[in-house]
């Protein structure tokens, strides 16, 4: 698969001047030889806790911050091919209507006359805001404002869409709708590439095909969800639901693996999936009345802790 974007050993240090002018500026390493790829036509997620360097990466790609060292390779991407979506609804002119706002930004994308009018109509239709186009921007709800931010990003027909924590200020239904719009309008309709920057693990697991784990400016790991989980989680969890529990020797045999146990179910840690049939055979052999069994992959919620643990 081709890559729409590549970061090669990108370094960035920010200096914060001291209030006392005779003291030296404080240096903070935002990116430390960051190297990763964004596959073409996929949603790639930059995942990491606050201060990991996600927004710095987005700003470097958008041309708002310059890298100190390293290369940012954007294949066949020129200015205007990159759309930026942030949760900042103040980036619109609140006295103007939705249409007037988009008309202005469309002109800045070099669109004129009928082409401009059609493009503005198209993007408003795409995000379901056409009927609201003549309302002043200040009267829109948070969800509507977010749709307008997406509509504006669509104006230039971008090949790469940068989403910097785009749903930070909206409710879960609006968030779901927003990501549906992104998937439909960018990935399915346009075959574009999306780089999503979030610390919301749920968003990452739901949406991304490719995940880049960041920690203190470094890329810790890169790959699909399964790869990341395999790399950072040592076990699966086997959940057994039962009518009656197995006899005591079962608990003794698996005492190091049993994580939780209740009157109707138990959870066991298993290193490999191949161990599961053996465990279930023992469960039945020791007179347990099985209702059902399933594996639960350790969620990414535990991942940040694990990363911290491993690094320290």
């Amino acid at each position: 698969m081709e890559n729409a974007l590549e970061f090669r050993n990108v370094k960035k240090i920010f200096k914060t001047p001291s209030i006392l002018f005779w003291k030296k500026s404080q240096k903070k390493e935002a990116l430390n030889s960051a190297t990763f790829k964004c596959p073409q036509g996929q949603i790639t997620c930059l995942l990491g806790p606050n201060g990991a360097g996600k927004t710095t990466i987005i700003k470097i790609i958008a041309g708002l911050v310059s890298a100190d060292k390293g290369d940012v390779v954007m294949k066949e991407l020129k200015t205007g091919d990159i759309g930026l979506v942030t949760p900042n609804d103040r980036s619109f002119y609140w006295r103007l209507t939705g249409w007037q706002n988009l008309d202005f930004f469309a002109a800045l994308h070099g669109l004129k006359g009928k082409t401009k009018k059609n493009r503005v109509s198209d993007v408003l239709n795409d995000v379901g805001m056409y009927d609201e186009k003549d309302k002043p921007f200040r009267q829109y709800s948070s969800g509507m404002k977010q749709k307008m931010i997406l509509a504006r990003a669509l104006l230039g027909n971008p090949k790469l869409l940068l989403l910097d924590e785009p749903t930070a200020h909206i409710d879960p239904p609006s968030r779901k709708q927003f990501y549906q719009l992104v998937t439909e309008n960018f990935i399915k309709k346009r075959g574009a590439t999306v780089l999503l920057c979030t610390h919301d693990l749920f968003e990452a697991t739901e949406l991304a095909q490719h995940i880049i784990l960041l920690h203190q400016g470094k890329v810790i790991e890169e790959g699909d969800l399964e790869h990341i989980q395999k790399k950072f989680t040592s076990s699966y969890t086997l959940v057994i639901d039962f009518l009656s529990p197995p006899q005591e020797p079962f608990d003794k045999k698996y005492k190091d693996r049993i994580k939780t146990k209740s009157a109707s179910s138990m959870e066991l840690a298993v290193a490999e999936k191949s161990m599961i049939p053996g465990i279930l055979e023992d469960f039945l052999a020791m007179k347990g009345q099985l209702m059902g069994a399933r594996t639960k992959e350790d969620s990414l919620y535990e991942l940040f802790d694990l990363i911290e643990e491993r690094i320290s």
Partner: protein
Amino acid sequence: MKLLAFIKKDFQINMSYRFYFFLQFGFMFISLFMFYFIGRTFSGAMSQYLSAYGGDYFAYVLIGISITSFVSVGLNSLSSVIRESQVQGTLEALLSTPTSIYTILIGSSLWAFVSSLVSSIGMLTVGLIYIGQNVQLINSIVSLAVLFLTFTSFLSVGMLSASFIMVFKQGNPINMIFGTSSYFLGGIYFPVDVLPEWVRGLSNLLPITHATKALRTLLLTNQPVQNAVPIIINLIIFIVVLLPLSLVIFKIAVKKAKRDGTLIQY
């Protein structure tokens, strides 16, 4: 086309504040009336200084105040555009489009330029008609060119101010120095000849001194255009020196802001 889009957008925003939109034209004429009565109060008293300009204080100050809006727009608009768009958050959105920061800057200050041009021309027209001054067509056309040159020279200074705002966010020594000295030494409210001789040298270093002198030569004394040419050349020299210098300094400021990661911060 992009520059026109900025004018259209700012016109729409201004029209959404209708009361303020019409009120600012009212204020323009209030200040005219004020100087008319000041002129009547002191008529004749300052004639030795004003004789070179026709002897009427109102006519003299009319030229000065009609140009002050240009000084203000040229000096403040660019730095205000940077500051406001950083605070509001629109700068990030504007820079995300394929539009250079220079187009954004110039485009965002165009509305202020157009409205100050309209108010200056309105003030001059009303004032000159009132005092019964006959101005030749060629002098009027050259006066318009002088207004444009004045704006461009102050825009260059404004670009230096914008560079300060880009890097330091707050505090604008260039505006303070240039603005105050232009109002005080530029011959807006009183002739430069009133000032002590050593201060007059300083006033020649300000573009506004030459702008007011050129406009008064063209509109009040109705001298042939050739007499204003040397003064206009002085204005052009200011632009030739200041404009490229301010563009280079602004480019350095943008580069520094990108390196520091503070381009869109305030």
